[in-house]
């Protein structure tokens, strides 16, 4: 007689078998061609909403092939040239204080203009890049390793951090973590330079554990205190704001952080964080929320996290694991995600082969939707998910879509005159400016969009045409399906303003 007691060993074996079966099932689906709907879904999830041409290119591929292609196309640098002013010297706080009032004012205004220009630059990159996944991963890290204006006053610093994030976006997490701890924008944002022996400032130590790498419950207040001591020495040149290590202010006494004891410095503490299993789980969990579903599956996350850790924190390994999940190709209602403001606007433009007539205006528009690039509201970043949608933001989102489709020429002229550019500051009061930005945020040509579905704006649509159009624009059935006989232009407008368009 077979003895079938549920020993821990047996339970472990069963669990292992279940995981293998789950993965096998996922892999089986992954071996089938995506088709237009699968391609549309995967490209929306892994990038910004795709143009019909992109969908056509990916439809015959399997999920495995598609993910391989997306990962192969990842860039480490932006495709567009950088803003003109990035090489201009930084005016550090010491020099700034010595300037006369007039020059201080001019410098402040210059920083404001450049900060807007920085946002313009990034949005244009998102619209124009051949690798949307690169920008999505840069955005992901931007929301993980948060540094924000206005505390970081110098746009050059924010630009350089953005470059750093993109460089390592699908690189190595250990490398990225060590680099971000020394990044001048981060040092300014979390007061690292004022942290010194005998006078510790816990800000960076706390946030690196709570928000960046481990998550709550995996460290103690004492760990934070000791880690703060270890991070002393990370500092900046007061004039150039370049990173400088100051051994003179480093606390080289014995510390104990997460069970590691010794005269630890900042780098040793960062490595101690990476020795915790919680680190890989935390990051993969966040990737899951970004790409897969609002509800991380602990079993699948654990599998990917183990691979991530064993790979030596190769981000590509984690990303591949996440992008291969079945939800990337077809998601039930419970697994739908909300498009971030940037995804919504950039997606609309890419999907419609449109443009940003005034990318600065687009930056103001997404800020009005709740995502002011380079200015997350606090160090936790944008919570994302359903938090993107509240009564205020939803109205701005819808209005931006409406305006992108049909913009009265007079309003456009007025708006163009008001919006800021690299040379001219904005005109008009904040309310008018906001209005102008939303008028000019994005532009798609409805006729061209319909043409790619072989439809003409003034013709009434039959049921299957409506189905085809809805299937091309949305990842889930519209809440308010246009009825047969609706004119194509009206159907397009209705579908883009449907709640379903806000989701991916």
């Amino acid at each position: 007689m077979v003895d079938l007691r549920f020993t821990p060993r047996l339970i472990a074996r069963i669990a292992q078998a279940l995981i293998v079966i789950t993965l096998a099932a996922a892999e089986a689906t992954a071996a089938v061609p995506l088709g237009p709907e699968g391609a549309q879904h995967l490209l929306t999830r892994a990038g910004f909403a795709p143009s019909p041409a992109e969908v056509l290119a990916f439809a015959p591929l399997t999920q495995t092939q598609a993910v391989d292609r997306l990962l192969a196309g990842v860039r480490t640098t932006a495709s567009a040239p950088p803003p003109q002013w990035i090489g201009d010297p930084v005016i550090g706080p010491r020099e700034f204080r010595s300037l006369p009032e007039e020059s201080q004012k001019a410098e402040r205004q210059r920083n404001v203009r450049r900060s807007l220009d920085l946002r313009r630059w990034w949005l244009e990159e998102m619209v124009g890049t051949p690798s949307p996944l690169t920008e999505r991963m840069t955005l992901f890290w931007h929301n993980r390793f948060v540094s924000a204006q206005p505390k970081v006053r110098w746009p050059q610093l924010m630009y350089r951090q953005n470059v750093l994030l993109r460089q390592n976006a699908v690189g190595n997490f250990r490398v990225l973590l060590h680099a971000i701890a020394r990044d001048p924008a981060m040092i300014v944002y979390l007061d690292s330079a004022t942290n010194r022996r005998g006078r510790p400032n816990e800000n960076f130590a706390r946030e690196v554990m709570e928000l960046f790498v481990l998550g709550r419950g995996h460290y103690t207040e004492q760990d934070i205190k000791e880690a703060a001591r270890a991070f002393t020495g990370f500092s900046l040149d007061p004039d150039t704001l370049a990173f400088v290590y100051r051994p003179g202010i480093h606390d080289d006494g014995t510390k104990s952080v997460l069970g590691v004891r010794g005269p630890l410095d900042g780098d040793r503490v960062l490595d101690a964080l990476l020795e915790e299993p919680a680190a890989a789980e935390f990051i993969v969990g966040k990737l899951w929320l970004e790409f897969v579903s609002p509800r991380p599956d602990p079993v699948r996350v654990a599998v990917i996290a183990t691979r991530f850790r064993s790979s030596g924190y190769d981000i590509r390994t984690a990303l591949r694991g996440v992008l291969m999940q079945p939800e990337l190709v077809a998601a039930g209602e419970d697994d739908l995600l909300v498009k971030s403001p940037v995804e919504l606007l950039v997606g609309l433009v890419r999907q419609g082969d449109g443009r940003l007539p005034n990318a600065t205006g687009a930056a103001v528009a997404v800020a009005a939707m709740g995502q002011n690039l380079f200015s997350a509201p606090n160090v936790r970043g944008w919570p994302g998910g359903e938090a993107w949608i509240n009564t205020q933001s939803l109205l701005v989102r819808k209005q931006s879509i409406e305006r992108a489709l049909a913009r009265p020429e007079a309003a456009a002229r007025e708006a163009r005159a008001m919006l800021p550019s690299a040379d001219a500051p904005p005109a008009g009061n904040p309310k008018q400016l906001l209005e102008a930005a939303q008028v000019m945020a994005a532009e798609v040509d409805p006729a061209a969009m319909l043409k790619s579905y072989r439809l003409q704006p003034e013709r009434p649509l039959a049921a299957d045409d409506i189905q085809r159009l809805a299937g091309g624009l949305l990842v889930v059935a519209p809440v308010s399906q246009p009825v047969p006989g609706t004119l194509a232009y009206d159907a397009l407008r209705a579908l883009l303003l449907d709640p379903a368009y806000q989701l991916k």
Partner: protein
Amino acid sequence: MNRRRFLQSAAVGAACFSGWARAATRDAPPRLLVLFELRGGNDGLNTLVPVHDGRYRDLRPRLALAESDLVALAPNLHLHGSLAPWLPLWNTSEMAVLQGVGYPQSDLSHFRSIEIWDTASASSEIVQTGWLTRVAENAAAFRRCAADGVILGAADLGPFTGGARAIALSDVRRFTAMARLALTSTAPAQGALAHLLRVENEIVRAGTELGPVPAFSTEFPRTPLGQAVQQAAALGSSRRVPVIRVTLSGFDTHQNQLGVQANLLRQLAEGIVALRGALVEAGVWDDTLLLTYSEFGRRPRENGSGGTDHGTANVHFAFGRSIRGGVYGEPPPLDRLDANGNLQHTLDFRSIYAAIIADWWGLDASRALRGRFNPVRFIDARHA
């Protein structure tokens, strides 16, 4: 319109308006609560200052304020000088000072601590609903209003998390103009789609009910808080919403605290005075209660950057005609700090909520707070 329909619609209109007639009608609207969230953790020790306590100066060689920097409400009650605009309110007994406000097992994380305040949970439990969501669930009068609450100056739902009808907006006029873009739907849905449809429905309802914006002769400060307060005044005077939350950010003063806090407290002081002025104009000040709150106070000992790290117990303020003016709670002792060097609280914030729920709104506090808390008697329940 025939006479009967006219009377019906007038009754519906009146149901969410307050006034002396309120006492006579069973359908009285809930009285107004305006919350001022001091986001980041305001430093209470430099707000209500124990200027005569030698330990204060020992703990803060650089940051300690001198008596000449302060405004004296009473011989041993000194406020940060920026709060001088409140002195007249103190003198007319429209102001309560709530000392040592906190909760057991303080959490020093911004996000966790504000979650504790917003959900009125114990430090060790995670609760998914905001305290005002639970209040609204059991308040028929809230259901008659355009929304359970309005959020100004922030995007998160805070005390309205988990199902309350909360409207986020920045400008009432623009909101009502744009509300035509929303659609009502009764389609069954799950997850993110369900959330979206709920928000659309809320927009439609609020868009029709949050009516015209009055003009005030009160001047509002030209600051972001001043603008938010102007919207709060418009919403408050309409009495179509029972709660408004205004958020003022920037209080996380890990460095350069003196200048930053002085500026923020001045904005707060002027904002509250302006709001009171406008609501007096609109004739609704008698039925209004203002309360400040914050995720935590800050550490007594200053850090090495001219600032302070995260702390615990804090001072908060309440304003209104129905306030029993005075000081409540005990000052947290500077010689009995906890293991992290932080103040021990002497007043649980849930006692303040209990007073608002029971004494201000006449509702069952223990249900909304999931437990019994002795209300701090700073509200004159006689007016309820």
